[in-house]
């Protein structure tokens, strides 16, 4: 298996810089001989002895329950290319700007003979940082290219202000939380960042970023304050947004346990309709959700609270608007505080969902769940990966998938590690709550 030939799939909208990157890969010294399968003539000509032109040919295998779409042109070319395997070390497939990466990747997933000789190292997607906004909302191809990627190059960064880049990167990470994002000009990135990725290596399925599995909240910050006798007021003097939601909840004391309990209360409260609070409006400290109106200038909201301990949760970080709680003796510092992963970075259509559940799942229930899920949502699930702890199995079950296709292997013994299930999905119209709830029913 160690002699398998790595395959890099290069995607990106027309003009994003695929050919620029391809030319770099072909001309820079990296000691590898690369066979290129091209689906379109790029804006820069490529003079290379091992460039093969292909015409995209989608081929669908459908048994009624499972639909698997592969690329017939690639199967033919790879079949003949592997007869001269001694002439190259790696294959690079450049897709058209309008190509769906799904069939390309699935081509390498289904044929066991091909899988023993070839493997997809990574899907690398170039994004034109200047012009992608025009396509992010209405182009399925752009969304799918981002969703499938292991590596995303935000290219042409010199043409975009830093603040815009931050927004773009946040949106892209909301769509695909697994991909590594690099900001580039002229696709200048160390070549090992695109050629030695191991994105489809099943061993990496176990390396789900813990941050990715953190729950998401409608607030970014929470803290516990001791409000003295005589009351207090919130003050602010910056208005990065027109308004910001905030809730005050009485708690027993300032510790992590009380903060966690209050966080769960706040999660429910944040789904309520907020009460608008203009500056000088009084805030009750009893679990009402307020929307502080931020007209700018020096702003203050008196808090109607008896002396005591209160948890505060804010939609944004307090420092963004210089929010402070001021008592008789001056600013009150939170005794304990935490930042939370916000839930407002998601594209409304394509997103990533992480699930983590401790303990074992029931193998039969798991099979039924994944079978039903892939039949109903397989077309919308671009990629998935993770680790299962199956009751009665001493070893981990690691898996990854593309649309309706699953690949799995024995992940070795759990050893001293706590048994748990970690899954990540990237897809279209994923219902985070429904996925979590339905997976929990698989637990033994």
């Amino acid at each position, binding site marked *: 298996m160690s002699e398998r030939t790595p395959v890099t799939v290069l995607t990106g909208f027309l003009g994003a810089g695929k050919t620029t990157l391809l030319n770099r890969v072909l001309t820079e010294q990296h000691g590898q001989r690369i066979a290129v399968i091209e689906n379109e003539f790029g804006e820069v000509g490529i003079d290379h002895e091992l460039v093969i032109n292909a015409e995209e040919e989608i081929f669908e295998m459908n048994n009624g329950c499972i639909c698997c779409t592969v690329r017939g042109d690639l199967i033919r070319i790879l079949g003949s290319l592997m007869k001269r395997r001694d002439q190259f070390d790696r294959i690079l497939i450049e897709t058209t700007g309008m190509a769906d990466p799904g069939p390309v990747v699935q081509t390498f997933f289904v044929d066991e003979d091909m899988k023993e000789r070839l493997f997809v190292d990574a899907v690398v997607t170039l994004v034109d940082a200047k012009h992608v906004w025009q396509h992010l909302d209405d182009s399925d191809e752009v969304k799918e290219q981002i969703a499938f990627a292991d590596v995303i190059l935000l290219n042409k960064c010199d043409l975009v202000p830093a603040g815009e880049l931050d927004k773009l990167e946040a949106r892209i990470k909301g769509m695909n939380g697994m991909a590594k994002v690099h900001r580039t000009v002229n696709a200048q990135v160390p070549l090992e960042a695109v050629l030695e990725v191991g994105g489809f290596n099943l061993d990496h399925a176990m390396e789900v970023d813990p941050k990715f599995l953190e729950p998401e909240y409608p607030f970014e910050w929470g803290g516990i304050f001791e409000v003295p006798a005589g009351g207090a007021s919130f003050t602010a003097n910056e208005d990065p947004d027109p308004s910001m939601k905030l809730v005050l909840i009485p708690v027993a004391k300032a510790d992590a346990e009380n903060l966690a309990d209050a966080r769960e209360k706040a999660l429910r409260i944040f789904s309520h309709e907020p009460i608008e609070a203009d500056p000088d409006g009084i805030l009750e400290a009893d679990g009402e959700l307020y929307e502080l109106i931020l007209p700018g200038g020096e702003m203050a909201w008196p808090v109607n609270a008896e002396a005591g301990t209160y948890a505060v949760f804010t939609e944004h970080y307090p420092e963004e608007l210089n929010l402070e709680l001021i008592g008789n003796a001056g600013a009150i510092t939170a005794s304990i505080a935490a930042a939370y992963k916000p839930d407002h970075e998601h594209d409304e259509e394509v997103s990533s969902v992480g699930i983590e559940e401790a303990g074992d799942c029931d193998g039969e229930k798991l099979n039924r769940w994944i079978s039903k899920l892939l*039949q109903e949502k397989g077309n919308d699930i671009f990629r998935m990966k993770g680790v299962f702890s199956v009751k009665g199995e001493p070893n981990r079950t690691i898996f990854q998938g593309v649309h309706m296709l*699953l690949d799995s292997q024995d992940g070795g013994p759990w050893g001293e590690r706590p048994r748990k299930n970690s899954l990540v999905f990237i897809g279209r119209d994923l219902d985070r709550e429904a996925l979590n709830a339905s997976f929990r029913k698989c637990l033994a």
Partner: protein
Amino acid sequence: MDLFSPKNGNADATRALKRWAAECRAESDAVVHVAELRCHEAGCPDFETVVTWMCSPPLVVKIFKPINQITREDVQAACSGNPNTTEPCLKEHL
């Protein structure tokens, strides 16, 4: 049927199947592609192996067995238009 049971070890069986498929159409030099699809639905066969000769247009036969249980005779029967089918997948006929 366990959807998560690894398919490792099917590569040799796949290569044998490809050889038999090529023998069946000796006049063609089309690349042969083999895919084993697994289904967990009640009423569907657990396994469906799709053999495709990537000629133009592609020629497809299906054998309702896992790859590593398919024999040369199965492939010959499938090629002669008498595929060794069990029950077809339910939804195909809904």
